[in-house]
């Protein structure tokens, strides 16, 4: 690898135009194979779907203010929470960080001119759009009411809604994530620049590596399980039909074989992002880099062996419950290590309070709560009492929304100057970050409480004793909604009126910062070469005595 020269890297004196100047027509965007532009296509589409999913759950939260409902029928209610789940999981969370920041930053981080298969990269976006088209069709044709889990026999025989189109949307978008995964794996394996050894990869690159592996190996199983459901529904092939000897639990096994690792698809990239942010804003090396890498790998692999904890009450055998419970406790260990390491990274740093750091701290707090409540659910007796209740809802939202979305926002703010060349308004960004953290807690802490008290999930009408908690939660959702809208406004504003950003506004060390912002089409002005460990913010084993930021040395040499 070391002797590779990159013929597509420009000569030294090239410069001037950024990737944004390569074409201004819509067509130039729709046919681009530049990973940076594809990242932006993805960012726009997932933002759109985030707000569609958000509107759906906004209506649900409004309806839940009253125990007997306000304006929806039960069927409409069921369709709304289902579409919220489908959109948020497959059209926002799964592609969120990998398809936007992964696409944009990963090749630059490892010193590559592009991803390994640029046309496949564009295809993956079109697959996403195709899947999205099915989902929009489902939305317009009256929705689907199976819950995002598609459990048979309800989905195969009893539901009167558009199950097949919904499954088709998820099926297609699944191939988009497989394409992304294959692309990233090949990129990291084949296109690292000279000097970028495996253990010099930044943790974000490592997290992309592991998450790609999980995507590639888990997603096909989801595709098959949805295909089987659709075949049963459309052709009447009795695969999960108990009347022919089929077992609905088999679907649950296959579904969760994907959908549990899918949680790691959502959280691993988040871990990668906050590792970058913590190191940069604490001006410290990430504490225990090696342990961080191995814990990412462990989570990725062991995460495949714990799916049965979604099925403790489903009629699974008691032995299987025991085994899955044990493995679920084991997978919590590397997550705990990561929390401790991020905390320890702050030790003897020079901690700044910029917006990305506040978002990352929000991630750390919420991920800790989400992870610890995961231990409750790994314990079989507590899981029996709380599964299918709001406790579970609150738990996975804490991980997936509290964790992933906070980290997503941290990453957006951290790399915003890199992507756009503009600075956003720091005050509003900090304000939004704090609002988001508070809004999140007001929304979901009441859900933990009412879940433990016995409030089942997916309930349109509910016993009035839980009303106070629902009102609190809906109030929090309003705060959360405002916090999500704020970045939309101030980030858009910064695009047009924002101050121009210097090339490396955070004085960060990553290779992606050693090139102009926004970067040129070929990423680097001359072939990059890495000559230092990642996060080289200070001498090994020693923090700087002064807070002089200019002493951070870049990891590579490519400007």
């Amino acid at each position, binding site marked *: 690898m070391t002797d*590779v*020269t*990159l*013929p*597509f890297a420009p000569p030294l004196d090239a410069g001037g135009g950024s990737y944004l100047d390569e074409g201004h027509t819509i067509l130039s965007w729709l046919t681009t*194979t530049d990973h940076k532009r594809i990242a932006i296509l993805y960012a726009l589409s997932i933002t759109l779907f985030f707000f569609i999913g958000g509107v759906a759950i906004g209506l649900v939260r409004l309806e839940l203010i009253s125990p007997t409902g306000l304006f929806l029928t039960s069927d409409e209610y069921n369709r709304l929470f289902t579409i919220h789940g489908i959109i948020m999981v497959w059209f926002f969370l799964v592609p969120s960080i990998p398809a936007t920041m992964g696409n944009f930053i990963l090749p630059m981080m490892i010193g*590559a*001119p*592009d*991803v*390994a*298969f*640029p046309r*496949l990269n564009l295809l993956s976006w079109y697959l996403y759009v195709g899947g999205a088209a099915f989902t929009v069709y489902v939305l317009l044709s009256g929705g689907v009411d199976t819950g995002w889990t598609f459990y048979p026999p309800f989905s195969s025989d009893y539901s009167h809604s558009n199950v097949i189109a919904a499954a088709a949307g998820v099926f297609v978008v699944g191939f988009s994530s*497989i394409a992304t*995964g*294959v*692309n990233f*794996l*090949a990129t990291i*394996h*084949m*296109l690292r620049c000279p000097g970028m050894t495996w253990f010099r990869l930044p943790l974000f690159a490592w997290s992309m590596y592991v998450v790609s592996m999980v995507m*590639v*190996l*888990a*997603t*096909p*199983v989801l*595709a*098959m*399980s949805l*295909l*089987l459901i659709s*075949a*049963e529904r459309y*052709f*009447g*092939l*009795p*695969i999960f*039909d108990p*009347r*022919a*000897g*089929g*077992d609905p639990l*088999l679907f649950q*096994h*296959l579904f969760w*074989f994907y959908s549990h690792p899918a949680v790691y698809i959502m959280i691993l990239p988040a871990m990668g992002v906050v590792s970058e942010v913590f190191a940069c804003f604490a001006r410290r090396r990430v504490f225990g880099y090696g342990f961080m890498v191995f814990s990412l790998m462990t989570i990725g692999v062991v995460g495949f062996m714990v799916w049965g904890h979604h099925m403790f009450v489903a009629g699974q055998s008691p032995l299987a419950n025991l085994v899955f419970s044990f493995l679920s406790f084991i997978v919590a260990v590397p997550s705990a290590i990561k929390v401790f390491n991020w905390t320890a990274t702050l030790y003897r740093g020079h901690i700044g309070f910029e917006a990305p750091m506040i978002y990352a701290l929000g991630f750390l707090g919420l991920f800790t709560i989400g992870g610890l409540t995961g231990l409750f659910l790994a314990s079989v007796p507590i899981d029996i009492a709380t599964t299918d209740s709001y406790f579970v809802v609150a738990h996975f939202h804490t991980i997936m929304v509290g964790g992933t979305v906070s980290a997503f926002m941290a990453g957006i703010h951290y790399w915003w100057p890199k992507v756009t060349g503009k600075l956003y308004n720091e005050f509003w960004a900090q304000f939004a970050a704090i609002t988001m953290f508070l809004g999140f807690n007001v929304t979901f802490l009441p859900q933990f409480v009412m879940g433990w008290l016995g409030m089942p999930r997916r309930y349109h009408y509910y016993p009035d004793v839980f009303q106070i908690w629902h009102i609190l939660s809906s109030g929090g959702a309003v705060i959360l909604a405002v916090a999500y809208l704020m970045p939309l406004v101030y980030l858009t504003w910064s695009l047009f009126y924002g101050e121009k950003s210097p090339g490396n506004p955070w004085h960060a060390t990553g290779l992606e910062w050693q090139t102009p912002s926004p970067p040129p089409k070929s990423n680097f002005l001359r072939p990059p070469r890495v000559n230092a460990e990642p996060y080289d913010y200070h001498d090994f084993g020693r923090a700087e005595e002064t807070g002089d930021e200019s002493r951070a040395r870049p990891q590579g040499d490519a400007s």
Partner: protein
Amino acid sequence: MSDAAGALREPWPNLQLQRQGVGLGMWMFLASEVLFFAALFCGYAVYRSFNAEAFRIASAHTEIVYGSINTVLLLTSSLTMTVALRAATVQLRGLTLFCLAATAALGAAFLVCKGLEYHEDLKQHLFPGPHFPLSPPATQMFWGFYWIMTGIHAVHLTGGILVVLLVFTLFKRRTVPVQGSTMEGVAIYWHFVDSVWLVLYPLLYLAGRP
């Protein structure tokens, strides 16, 4: 190999790395495909272990003649595909084109056989539903798997044939010079589709013989 440089694509520095990259990418996609089919096989295995007798009865009704012919067709197509790739690597244009054409033709012959077999199955109403001729009910499950497994395999094969024809056209029209990098991925994929059939054959056709 200077004339082969026309096959080089961004972002690869040279053809050798590109070929490695394409091969690696395809293997990764196949690992994904393995899990796709594994889910199907897992379902089959679970149900068979609880309905062994029904599965035996049901699979006695598959058309073993068509199944066996198809096995031979696919094995042979794998042979021609391998030779095509090796010929392309040493830039033997004629042999490459011949073997690619043969591979596509064998694949098409497989699909024709499959079509005849489906026709035969449908004539016997071997499609799960109210008029299904076999009992106990779990035989319907076997036939559910039969249709899904062979159907998905046929879709994969059709995709394979189309890509082989695409490569053939590119080589024939000299859009891309004959060399291995362009067809490395296709070849690996083709063999994979063949391997899947090698599992389907005993599961669907041989399981119910006396």
